[in-house]
């Protein structure tokens, strides 16, 4: 009744015409714009390169996924933390990324005793921290002491305890000699002294070491000897480094004289892949780490340069639980090694920056041996024969059965690398064909960590990788006394646990290159062939896409980046 009255009044009123049309058009436009993304044009990546002579100055805008949770370089487990740490601190030695050889850096030379329990480093005398204090043996001692033991009062964790097991002390017979002593032989310490990955032994000034964890979140107070110093740090967003004035001690192997070329580096954290690639395309950034496999080709087509290096250490591995049914059967382990198509993985999942694993060690680690012609090959027929012989018969659903129990293999993996899941799925499909049901649980790091605690009893396979460019990484990862990656124990059927312990342990007993090579080969033979404790999958890579005018970004032996040698052709 009321509405009737209203309508009649309203109808009597004169109609105004213009604005509703306007509103309608605006609304339509809004919808159109929000549902419409233009295709990208050619970015500044297409610009030509310079004449090859380094240009001084300029600011490098560099993007990555992670951010530094604290500017303290001795702490930290992500790439942003290790990468930035490498540019504000220096190490005792530099590992050549091509040969794996340990070369001088802050230490001019070194020697070690026959037992490999005492390492004597002769330090450079011209090195200073950015606050002007000298770098000497007292600094080395203070750093290593805190690095290994932590400091409860300051809230500093024992970050280096895992890298330097059995550290006793550092002796300082004179200002420029430091003797580092261990309880047990530790051949891998020489490589550890160059370590640039997570929780790295980069030297901090004595004033920094006195600060609590909380005080170290003030970047200006974190003092190193590196080619760059902190200008600012904003958690979640960015870290800005500026060139260290007077720096003149980059590793001799780099053949870089004097200060860094760049004036400034801005590390911007961009969690979204499409925003990283888009920003590179629009010229907002000069280079980005963490390039996804699916973006590599399109960025290259846009004129950007893709540089990459495989992570040195182990490949991405399937570690078999030697105590849990059904991976306690060596026939099952061998069948898995033989049962998946490496060519298919390469074609459908990996890009040119990645490679299929041919050993448990990455090809860049000294002592690496190639098993692609023997145990690590695709031979489904042989795999099936092995299973048949061991009593695994095809069940009604195609999955094999033995003693009434199905051949179900449970895998625990991490989804931190984009390639992992598709790679594992490719293997899963192939194994199904030979009657193995590989069940995948590929989860984020916290869930993985939670499950590793129960891996001994719950998981047949744990899939991960370990970044350490030294053959002794096999001892760390697989020795029953240390990482025990395949959960060896008394009830591991058919495995001589003592033999494994001794064979792997030998890697820590010598630094003689020839002997080490033999020991590394023996260790790989044992892990891959004799006991088949691991199925290596692929070699992960760190991939950078950069504009053509960016030069000289270094991938070190741990595939972390150094910028002392980096420059921009346009000098901006």
């Amino acid at each position, binding site marked *: 009744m009321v509405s009737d009255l209203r309508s009649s009044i309203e109808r009597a009123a004169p109609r105004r015409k213009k604005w509703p049309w306007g509103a309608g058009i605006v609304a339509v436009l809004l919808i159109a714009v929000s549902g419409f993304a233009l295709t990208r044009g050619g970015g500044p990546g297409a610009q030509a390169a310079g004449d090859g002579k380094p240009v001084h100055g300029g600011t490098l805008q560099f993007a990555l996924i992670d951010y530094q949770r604290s500017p303290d370089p001795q702490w930290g487990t992500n790439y942003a933390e290790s990468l930035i740490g490498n540019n504000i601190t220096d190490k005792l030695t530099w590992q050549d990324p091509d040969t794996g050889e340990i070369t001088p850096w802050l230490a001019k030379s070194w020697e070690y005793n026959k037992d490999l329990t005492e390492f004597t480093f002769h330090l450079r005398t011209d090195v200073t921290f950015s606050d002007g204090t000298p770098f000497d043996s007292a600094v080395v001692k203070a750093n290593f002491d805190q690095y290994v033991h932590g400091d409860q009062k300051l809230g500093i964790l024992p970050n280096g305890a895992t890298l330097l097991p059995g550290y006793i002390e550092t002796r300082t017979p004179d200002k420029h000699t430091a003797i580092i002593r261990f309880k047990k032989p530790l051949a891998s310490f020489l490589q550890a002294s160059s370590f640039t990955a997570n929780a790295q032994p980069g030297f901090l000034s004595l004033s920094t070491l006195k600060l609590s964890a909380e005080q170290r*979140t003030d970047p200006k107070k974190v003092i190193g000897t590196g080619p760059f110093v902190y200008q600012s740090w904003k958690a979640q967003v960015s870290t800005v480094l500026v060139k260290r004035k007077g720096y003149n001690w980059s590793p001799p192997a780099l053949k870089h004289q004097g200060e860094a070329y760049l004036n400034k580096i801005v590390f911007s954290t961009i969690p979204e892949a499409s925003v990283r690639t888009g920003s590179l395309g*629009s010229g907002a950034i000069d280079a980005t780490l963490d390039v996804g496999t699916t973006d590599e080709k399109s960025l290259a087509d846009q004129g950007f340069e893709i540089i990459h290096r495989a992570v040195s250490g182990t490949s991405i591995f399937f570690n078999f639980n030697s105590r849990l049914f059904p991976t306690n059967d060596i026939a099952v382990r061998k069948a898995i090694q033989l049962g998946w198509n490496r060519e298919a993985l390469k074609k459908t999942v990996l890009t040119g920056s990645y490679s299929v694993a041919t050993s448990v060690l990455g090809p860049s680690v000294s002592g690496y041996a190639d098993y692609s012609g023997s145990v690590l090959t695709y031979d489904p027929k042989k795999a099936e024969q092995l299973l048949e012989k061991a009593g695994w018969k095809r069940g009604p659903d195609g999955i094999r059965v033995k003693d009434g129990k199905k051949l179900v293999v449970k895998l625990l993996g991490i989804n931190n690398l984009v390639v992992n899941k598709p790679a594992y799925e490719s293997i899963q499909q192939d194994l199904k064909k030979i009657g193995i049901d590989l069940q995948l649980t590929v989860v984020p790091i*916290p869930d993985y*960590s939670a499950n590793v*605690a129960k891996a001994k009893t719950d998981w047949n396979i744990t899939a991960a990788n370990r970044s350490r460019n030294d053959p002794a990484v096999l001892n760390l990862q697989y020795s029953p006394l*240390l990482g025990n990656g395949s959960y060896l124990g008394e009830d591991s059927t058919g495995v001589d646990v003592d033999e494994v312990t001794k064979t792997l342990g030998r890697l820590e007993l010598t630094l003689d290159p020839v002997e080490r090579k033999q020991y590394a080969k023996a260790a790989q033979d044992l892990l891959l062939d004799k006991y088949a404790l691991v199925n290596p999958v692929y070699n992960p890579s760190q991939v950078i896409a950069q504009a053509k005018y960016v030069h000289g970004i270094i991938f070190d032996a741990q595939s972390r980046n150094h910028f002392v040698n980096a420059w921009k052709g346009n000098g901006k």
Partner: protein
Amino acid sequence: MLRYLALKVGRALFVVWAAFTLTFVLLFVLPANPVDLLFDPAELNTVTSEVREQAAESYGFNKPVLLQYLGRLGHALTGDFGNSVQSGRSVTATILDVLPSTFVLASGALLLALLIAFAIALIATSTRRAWVRNLVEALPSGAVSVPVFLSGILMLQVFSFQLGWFPAFGDRGAKSLVLPVITLAIPVSGPIAQLLVRSFATEFRSGYVTTSWAKGATRGVIVVRDVFRNASLPALTIAGITFGNLIAGSVITETVFARQGIGRMTQAAINTLDVPLVQGVVVLAAASFAVINLIVDLIYPLLDPRLRATLTVGSPRAA
């Protein structure tokens, strides 16, 4: 009136305490050990028990759970939530650091969302063309159903990568605020607009409007002068929901636009089981939520004379 006040304040305090306790329980029920997450996952088996114990001890994770709870609660009462496990920094300082950034983003988005919502309601009520009304009324549900993630990326594609008008990431002044604010405002405006469209329509049909018509007022005058004032009030009732939407949306907005903020920090803290930090954030969110609802409860009687009458005459429960 005093009882009403005490009741509301008491409820607010209970909500904050419950949030604190629930987070604590949840984080301890989770299977992962916060200490494990301090190490490289591939190295977990190699970390010696002494190192693990030392790490646990420095954060107090080695004490019995009940003691940890009481200790944390006691400190929390004084505003001390301990130190973040991941950065070693005090939780309060960490939160205060990123809070302004989120506050600016959220207030900007709220303002824009209100503008959008009122514009939609006004247009839908004022127009006499059915197709315009239908189109405009469809917008709120559209706004809610487009994922923030998608609208953010689209916005970046067009206005940042293509046109280069705005920076794509980081916190660089007002310019880098525009796209995130729009992205966050869109989903937040949806529920407000829906509510307003309905309440505008209801008020538009009430008796006093008819009186105005009879007195000769035009449609525009009626909508702006009479309906607007009365129909706006209900928007306050969903202030709590709006706040929730802002916080939820900020997690994704801050991630897409690589901004510093509470949302992104919360996500990282949960992913790494940073117990002290998660607690600090949850308590902050719960407290804000409680305070907002408390203010709405207290302010409503002042704005609505009918409610005031029931309060002074009848029992507070009637509210």
